[in-house]
């Protein structure tokens, strides 16, 4: 067969001639491969020509052909079939039903490929073509809008910035809620950044844009990504499977020829939306009752006619570019295959000086020898990022992020003028002390860069021994090692706290090393034809070790020399953290199939985790799932061609982070006499694992000969015994205390509709619509706790928070006070509404009511046009950027300052000591906006809807007849892609897909908090792919 193919190919290459041999008429019939019934309406065409026909009602056809021409048979719901014409005059073609549209194979937990129809739970797969249609440096972003129940949030437009992914809501109040990433059978780290070193160098998640480490993967290397949505799907992975799993399979060489593929892309990106600013008022402040121009705020006089109003914000951002080149060579024989690839991405950011550069190399290979199969999947990557300070800059630094500075910059001053003629810093307010002044964003991006560099090796080696048809063993050993160097520089002369005004340099090296050993025994046997049994038994051991070394120097001796050595000994600091965790697991999966009718699966796993106290180290959890294909019992119908019901129940345990079973120390202390004291967090030596219990019901229906498919799922997930370190009464002796209390419930529905409204030899239209809704609710919090905050995300007068018996993804904030009847409480003398300093009132829910995507793909001849819309309905966003604009007096909203506002409400009469209804007029001045207006968080909360053209892609492949003329060429494809070209939203701020602190935030995360980050971008890319 292989030889024939080779001869054919050679024949095509060498004997293709412009003058075709004489045409003749070929007659034939097309039949169903199973029962040989004729298929009417099958499209037939001669490849590379305009000749085509269809089969008649009897499945017969005739077509004029010439020798060596290729015929293509296309029929909806069936696999395409191609054949080369020899000398024959008649032909019978058997078409097979398309497994892509019906018997889709999905890579499930532990890398086991299974027919989708067998699955008792919801899982979805995305193939490489789909991933590359809107290729993003961060593979997580390529999933956005494509899968029901999957919520992807890109944190902003900075190159290399993180995106968070949450499947079916969060299960942990204070844990990582992102799914487990598994690459080629091994769990892989997808943590984000270093925003956890705040006490050492002020690095918090909001201070800059960090990368999530799945970004180290070259998207071109991915063959498929399976999304296992719930505990039932992922139960075999244990521990982290409560949040679902993303199973990545990388490419393999295919048996046959060796092929080479080269892809080059050029991208350009621009800011898609920046906030508006007022252009009426200049710099100054009258906050203290007396006007002063010694303030960066814009509460000053009106611009005079003819005065320049600088567009500081609009002028700041640049058009970004990226060059993305990749190469791969792959091939294989009967006994072995290989895939070798290399790639480089060089991307600049819309914020000048920022960039992201990634190079990757991958080698995958497999060799069979007798009953043995040996294989390796390995990749090496190097990623470098230059970032800038976002949010309010480094924690406790008294500085600002670049965007806060832009937001603050008065428009009577030319912000681009940031250096004096002699090269020194041009200050906005040179008469103020340095820490009271504001840094120019151009100073921040040029002088205070935040950089990181990661080298990473991910590799697995495996052996499979096939002892018998019914029994094989696989052993896999994997490593995931990376070293990231983080650098944070505050140059001398920056407007920061005194200690850093003469410079601060911090360097952190994070060394992550992970080892995974996995042994699996697979048994599979069919009895009496109808009964199919499989059993999987396995054991796994994981060893994770993370070492983080941080060093910091303050007050440089030589101001211009940037080095840790360039400071006095007393101003050099060092800190090390080591985190170790180990896990042993034993698991089993028993599956039973009866005919094509009934499929059942039972799994069980027992884990032993090092992070739990000894008596609670071992824990077991089972899962049950089944599917029932009821159409097997019904007479065949072209209306309902396939119908399946499925149900599952699963439990998954989750262990604690390391070192929570004991109380540790602060020290040696820097206070007089040194010594040690207890840390703020109390350890707990009776911790037990968290448990997530999940129930899922679904159906999968196909209509009109599989032309339309509908998939619907309903699920309820409950996660209890949450391991938390809530803030507690100080009188416990601690600020935080580890406890084992708390419950979250997620309920939701998911719909997916797949349809192929058109499919013939020339035109094919596929459309996919997905919709999902999730409702995450906190059922219980420890003790009398009304609220749990996400420590990283407390901005303006609002915080990301989870409420007891309320929203998991809530927003808490301060509010104007009201009495029980809802009347505003006013100040008797001033008439201002009374504000509260406690930001504990529920003021919003960040969880969208509905998210979804509409994905379309049109293929016409050699053209493919795809576009993906995604949409969201509901869910609140706290517009912290608008809060800042208001405080600095640059919000559009403050343009009508000076107007009179009338408030009616209740006020305490100091004479009568009673609350009385009053109406008072107040002037909306600077003080009002800054102290009264801003303190009512609801003014900055918006319920957001959007419709977005997430991606638009047009591809053209050179026709075969052109390809065939050029020797050695196998394919040429030109693509043009647009990203975010259209965004319709009611949100008044920047792009509403926002997450102020990125993906590294635990618990309910920072999604829905907009606070002076890097605005999202729109972009355009052109690419060329050549295959040899």
């Amino acid at each position, binding site marked *: 067969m292989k030889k024939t193919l080779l001869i054919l190919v050679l024949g095509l290459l060498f004997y293709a001639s412009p003058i075709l041999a004489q045409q003749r008429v070929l007659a034939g019939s097309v039949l169903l491969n199973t029962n040989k019934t004729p298929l009417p309406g099958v499209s037939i065409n001669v490849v590379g020509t305009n000749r085509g026909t269809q089969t008649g009602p009897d499945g017969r056809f005739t077509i004029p052909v010439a020798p060596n021409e290729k015929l293509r048979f296309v029929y909806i719901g069936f696999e395409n079939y191609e054949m080369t014409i020899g000398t024959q005059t008649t032909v019978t073609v058997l078409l097979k039903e398309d497994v892509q549209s019906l018997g889709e194979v999905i890579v499930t937990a532990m890398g086991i490929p299974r027919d989708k129809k067998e699955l008792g739970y919801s899982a979805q797969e995305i193939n490489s073509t789909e991933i590359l249609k809107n290729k993003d440096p961060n593979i997580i972003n390529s999933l956005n809008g494509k899968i029901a129940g999957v919520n992807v949030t890109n944190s902003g437009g900075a190159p290399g910035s993180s995106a968070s992914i949450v499947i079916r809501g969060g299960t942990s109040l204070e844990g990582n809620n992102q799914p487990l990433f598994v690459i080629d059978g091994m769990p892989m780290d997808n943590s984000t950044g270093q925003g956890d070193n705040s006490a050492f160098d002020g690095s918090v998640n909001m201070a800059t844009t960090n990368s999530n480490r799945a970004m180290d993967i070259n998207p071109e290397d991915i063959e498929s990504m399976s999304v296992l949505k719930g505990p039932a799907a992922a139960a075999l992975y244990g521990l982290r499977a409560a949040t679902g799993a993303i199973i990545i399979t990388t490419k393999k060489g295919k048996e046959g020829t060796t092929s080479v593929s080269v892809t080059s892309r050029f991208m350009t990106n621009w800011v898609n939306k920046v906030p508006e600013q007022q252009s009426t008022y200049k710099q100054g402040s009258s906050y203290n009752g007396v006007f002063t121009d010694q303030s960066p705020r814009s509460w000053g006089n009106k611009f005079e006619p003819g005065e320049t109003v600088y567009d500081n914000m609009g002028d700041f951002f640049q058009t970004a570019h990226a060059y993305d080149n990749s190469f791969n060579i792959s091939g294989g024989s009967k006994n072995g295959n290989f895939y070798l690839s290399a790639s480089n991405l060089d991307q600049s950011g819309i914020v000048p000086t920022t960039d992201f550069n990634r190079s990757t190399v991958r080698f995958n290979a497999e060799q069979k020898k007798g009953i043995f199969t040996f294989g390796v999947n390995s990749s090496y990557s190097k990623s470098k990022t230059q970032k800038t300070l976002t949010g309010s800059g480094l924690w406790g630094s008294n500085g600002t992020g670049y965007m806060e500075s832009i937001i603050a910059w008065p428009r009577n001053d030319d912000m681009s003028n940031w250096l004096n003629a002699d090269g020194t810093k041009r200050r906005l307010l040179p008469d103020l002390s340095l820490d009271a002044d504001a840094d120019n964003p151009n100073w921040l991006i040029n002088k205070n860069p935040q950089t990181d560099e990661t080298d990473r090796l991910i590799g697995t080696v495996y052996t499979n021994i096939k002892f018998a048809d019914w029994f094989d063993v696989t052993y896999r050993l994997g490593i995931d090692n990376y070293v990231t160097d983080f650098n944070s520089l505050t140059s001398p002369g920056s407007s920061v706290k005194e200690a850093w005004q003469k410079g601060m340099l911090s360097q952190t090296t994070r060394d992550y090393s992970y080892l995974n050993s996995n042994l699996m025994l697979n048994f599979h046997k069919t009895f009496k034809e109808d009964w199919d049994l499989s059993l999987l038994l396995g054991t796994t051991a994981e060893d994770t070790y993370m070492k983080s070394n941080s060093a910091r120097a303050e007050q440089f001796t030589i101001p211009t020399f940037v080095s840790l050595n360039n400071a006095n000994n007393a101003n050099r600091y060092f800190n090390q953290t080591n985190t170790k965790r180990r896990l042993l697991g034993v698991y089993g999966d028993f599956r039973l199939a009866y005919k094509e009718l009934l499929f059942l699966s039972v799994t069980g796993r027992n884990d032993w985790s090092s992070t739990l106290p000894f008596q609670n180290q071992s824990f077991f959890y089972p899962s049950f799932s089944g599917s029932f294909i009821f159409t097997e019992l019904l007479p065949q119908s072209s209306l309902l061609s396939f119908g399946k019901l499925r149900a599952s129940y699963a439990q998954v345990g989750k262990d604690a982070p390391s070192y929570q079973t004991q109380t540790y120390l602060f020290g040696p202390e820097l206070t007089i006499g*040194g010594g040690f004291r207890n840390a703020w967090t109390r350890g707990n030596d009776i911790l037990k694992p968290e448990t997530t219990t999940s129930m899922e019901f679904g159906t999968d229906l196909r209509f009109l000969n599989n032309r339309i498919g509908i998939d619907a799922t309903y699920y309820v997930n409950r996660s209890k015994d949450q391991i938390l370190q809530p803030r507690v009464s100080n009188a416990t002796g601690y600020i935080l205390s580890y406890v084992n209390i708390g419950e979250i419930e997620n309920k939701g529905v998911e719909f997916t509709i797949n349809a192929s409204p058109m499919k013939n030899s020339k035109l094919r239209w596929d459309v996919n619509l997905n919709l999902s809704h999730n409702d995450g609710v906190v059922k219980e919090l420890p003790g009398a706790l009304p609220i749990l905050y996400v420590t990283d995300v407390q901005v303006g007068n609002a915080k990301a928070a989870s409420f007891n018996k309320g929203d998991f993804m809530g927003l808490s904030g301060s509010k104007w006070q009201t009495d029980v009847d809802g009347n505003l409480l006013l100040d008797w003398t001033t008439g201002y509404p009374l504000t509260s300093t406690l930001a504990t009132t529920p003021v919003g829910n960040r969880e969208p009511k509905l998210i979804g995507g509409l994905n379309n793909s049109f293929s016409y001849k050699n053209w493919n046009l795809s576009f993906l819309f995604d949409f969201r309905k509901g869910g609140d966003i706290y517009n912290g950027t608008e809060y800042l604009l208001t405080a600095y007096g640059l919000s559009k909203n403050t343009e009508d300052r000076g107007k009179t506002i009338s408030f009616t409400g209740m006020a305490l009469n100091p004479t009568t000591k009673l609350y009385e209804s009053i109406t008072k007029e107040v002037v909306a001045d600077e003080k009002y906006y800054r102290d009264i207006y801003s303190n009512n968080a609801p003014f900055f909360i918006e319920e957001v809807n959007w419709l977005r053209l997430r991606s638009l892609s047009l591809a053209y492949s050179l026709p075969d007849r052109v390809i065939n003329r050029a020797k050695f060429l196998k394919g040429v494809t030109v693509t043009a892609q647009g990203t975010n070209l259209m965004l319709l939203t009611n949100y008044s701020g920047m792009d509403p897909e926002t997450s102020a602190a990125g993906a590294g935030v635990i618990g309910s995360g920072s999604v829905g908090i907009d606070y002076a980050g890097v605005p999202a971008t729109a972009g355009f890319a052109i690419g060329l792919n050549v295959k040899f």
Partner: protein
Amino acid sequence: MKKILYILVLSVVFSSCKKWLDVNENPDSANSTVPTAEQRLPPILAQFADGYESAGTRVAFLSQQLAVTYAINNNWNFTRWYANASNSGWPWQAWYVNTAVNIDPMITAAEGVGAYHYIGVGKIMKAWGFGTLSDLFGMLPYDEFNNVTILTPKFEDGSYVQGKVLELLDEAIVDLKKTQEAGAPALSVGDMLNGGSTDKWIRLAYGLKARYLNHLTKKASYDPQAVLDALANAPQMDAQSSIYQYIDEGATVTSTSKQALQYTNFSTTARVTKLYYDYLTNNYTGAPTGATNVQDPRLDTLIPRSQNSAGVLVRSALVDMQSVLPKTGPIDYSYSKNTASNKDSIYVQMRKNPLLPTAGQRILSTGSWYTQKGGKGLLLTNAEMRFIEAEVKFRQNQPAAALTAYKAGIRSHMTIMGIASAKIEAYLSSSSVVQIPGNLTLSQIMIQKYIALSYSPEVFSDIRRMNYCADASGNYNESTGIYKGFNRPSHVYIEAYPNATDWPRRFAIPSYEINYNIEQVLKANPNASNSTYINEPIWWDKP
């Protein structure tokens, strides 16, 4: 046989797995059972001093010793007598979380080696911290503090806590008199307050007893003799005072951990009030005065000065808390160019500036004695003891003894401040100080104590006990009141003090308890989350 082999193999596998999994001990930090007593004590003292002196800072703003340049901040709220969940929090947290939780582990470690002196010191610190908090807050968790199974500790009334505090002090005195076991660490190793002197610690314990027992002046149970008995064993000389010596590590060291708390806390926004200046300069109703008046020699070390455009050092302008100034100014010093003509620069900051003036540089502030980076924390002094004695003797109608103690109190404070003795004696023998026993008033005693206890949390206890400058009905009364001229600030927080007879009586319950322990808070006092809670007298502040 085969079975046994299996069991053997399994048990080997199991025990090696157990060992493999045994990696949950943090390699980067010892756990809380590890430190020895002498490693525990220095942070206990440093963190206690932080909480205690920071409470003093708050009291200084509340008691009109200090004003704040205009800003809606925590200290400014104290100047309008607005203690709230946020600005009351630090003394609470500094005690419970940073200090108290470390005392039992120190005592346990000390018990293991027979280091009785550490046990005694631990008990004194525990008594002192709870006693201080009890006086500020009136109610607080004591019995259920630091209980691993309780996340929401119940509150006790201050009267209960004071009973425990006095017991602890008695126990401590016994422990400090014991001889330590051989091999036990000497107290001097970890004692950064009293240099290992058990005598000073014992005197401190008695001094605290005197302080707490003397709080009961409004109570029927007030026992002046018990106060005098405690005073007899308390510090008699300045050198017997418990004074925390801070360290100035120099301009190039970034860490601020060893510098004086009041340098840190006053920052650049604290300003001197008119009241404080009037007390220092005897400019109040009934102040001692006469032909031989002498300027208080402490004046220029307590009131900062700055150079005017002619280079002459001029004392800070004063903030009159009854004027509109607290509402509208003085604005931040930094908002203007530093020329002396500007109105804001005459309100001189408490921090010395520049810290190390170079030749020709203008002095923006000479700073004050309390705000030197390497200053002293006057935690419990001979001066305070003498003023307690003066008060008790005055109450016992022994004016001569009262006058002696009153003068000794002034002398002690001046001596601790390093004033030359000739100047002290010149002042003490002048008409600026009462010379005739019969002329001495309680007001004069308390006002001198107010100066001698500048920025101490104990001032809050005194002004409450004396009912500010109010008469029996609670109304301001210049003639019968004690703290003459101490009246409502112009920007008083009216929600908490709607009536003219309402005065600050306690700190608000901190946010950590309001947010995470509200049930217990309300169980102890249903009014605790309301704004008028802070005008409710605590247990000893009412009959």
